[in-house]
């Protein structure tokens, strides 16, 4: 897993240094973190398996989502604490999705390496299924946390207050979506079609939401600028 993570992150890091566009660099950085988080999650999950004598099933459908969503969300929380200005733009949500995709890339390759015994057609089906379903699920789950932080910063939920409760809610929802997906996929009674369908539906939802955010940004370029100075 470490070799895989390094094989993905090093070229991307070198690429980031060559890229001029700050937005592209921002997104690629989050993608790189996703790849690193994939390795870290694998190590932590293996430790949990042995430390608490968990079954593989319990790890996959209960504990792994908690660990993985937390690791993926770390840069989002870091930005929310130390560099809040980046929360003002909808690209922050895209960055959250990039973390999930980066994570899934490492995870998919690690599963691919372990599935070497499958015949070519089965392997292709397996890869396509994971690429469509798991990748989008990871992006959506982290995207939920990104959307929560974006709206909190941009004042959408100001009249409710209690920011920390919304942040915790976003994390809980991300974990639950992930756990539910793993549960459905693990028990293959209706696993694969539902996994692919949920992936495609999630992707459509992401696409519609991001389009909407882009339109809103064109009409209100900086939502925070509309807030009176004394509220900022």
């Amino acid at each position, binding site marked *: 897993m470490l070799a895989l993570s390094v094989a993905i992150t090093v070229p991307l890091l070198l690429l980031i240094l060559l890229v001029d566009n700050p937005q592209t660099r921002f997104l690629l950085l989050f993608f790189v973190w996703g790849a690193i988080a994939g390795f870290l999650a694998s190590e932590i999950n293996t430790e949990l398996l042995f430390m608490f004598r968990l079954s593989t*099933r319990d790890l996959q*459908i*209960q*504990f792994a*989502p*908690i660990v993985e969503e937390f690791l993926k969300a770390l840069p989002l929380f870091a930005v929310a604490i130390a560099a809040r200005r980046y929360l003002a733009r909808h690209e922050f949500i895209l960055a959250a999705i990039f973390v999930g995709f980066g994570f899934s890339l490492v995870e998919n390759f690690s599963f691919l390496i372990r599935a070497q015994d499958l015949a070519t057609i089965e392997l292709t089906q397996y890869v396509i299924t994971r690429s469509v379903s798991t990748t989008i699920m990871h992006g959506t789950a982290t995207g939920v946390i990104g959307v929560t932080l974006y709206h909190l910063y941009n004042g*959408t*939920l100001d*009249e*409710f*207050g*209690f920011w920390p*409760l*919304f942040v*915790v*809610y976003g994390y*809980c*929802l991300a*974990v*639950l*979506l992930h*756990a*539910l997906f793993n*549960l*459905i996929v*693990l*028990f293959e*009674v209706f696993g694969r079609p539902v996994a692919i369908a949920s992936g495609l539906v999630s992707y459509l939802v992401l696409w519609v939401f991001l389009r909407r955010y882009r339109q809103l940004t064109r009409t209100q370029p900086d939502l925070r600028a509309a807030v009176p100075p004394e509220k900022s």
Partner: protein
Amino acid sequence: MIREHPLQSVSLAVFACAIIAAIGVGGVLLTDTFSGTTLFSEVFLDLHYLLMNGFFMLAVSLLFVGYYHYQRLVLLVAGLALSGWTLAHVYWTLYVYLASVPITYPSVAELGFQAFYLLILPTLLYLHRHAEIRLRRSLVPIIIAGPVLLAVATIGQPIPIGRFVYSLWYVTLAGASLAIATNLLLSHRFRGIAIGVALFAISDITYTTIAIITPQLTVEFLDPVWYVSATLIAASLLRYEQEGWLR
């Protein structure tokens, strides 16, 4: 004359259906108790969970559609609150059916169950601020009562510390929601959502206490209370919007 939006009629119909379903479940459970039969577990269990999850999804959908139509944020936040609990219960139900064993307590589903209270608390406090209702300090004992009840019930029981601490936290969240809902009730404002949240919280506190001191992890007589409360919360909020109380 304000024309009633179909959404309010639909939400009331869903609430009415939830009550009818609850009466049905109650009747079957009572029949089983007094006659010693196992009609509920052998015949109606699948239908019961299908209905329960269905009512929750309907309540959530009504609130989301209400937000889309009225652009009232409180409807979205309440819908998100119920979504957390609904997702958790769907997970819980699927686990039981697919794994053929009850899920442990606590489990990852608890994140969804507590997510309901994480958003319903700001929702209730928003209603308080909106209607300029003062919070009574005398209701603080309600928040404390849940954890105290739990602590007393677990005296002498060999309970893992993690399970006990989590249960205390959850019961405190539910107790806080119960206290704030009671405040609304005593102020004679927003009574529908107050009753809904209060019943929800009481059911959760009861379930948590049972789950921690007994091996019982399914408590069928509480299930109808949850889905009737959820549909009541949705119907109430939509009615308040229709009446203009949320503007």
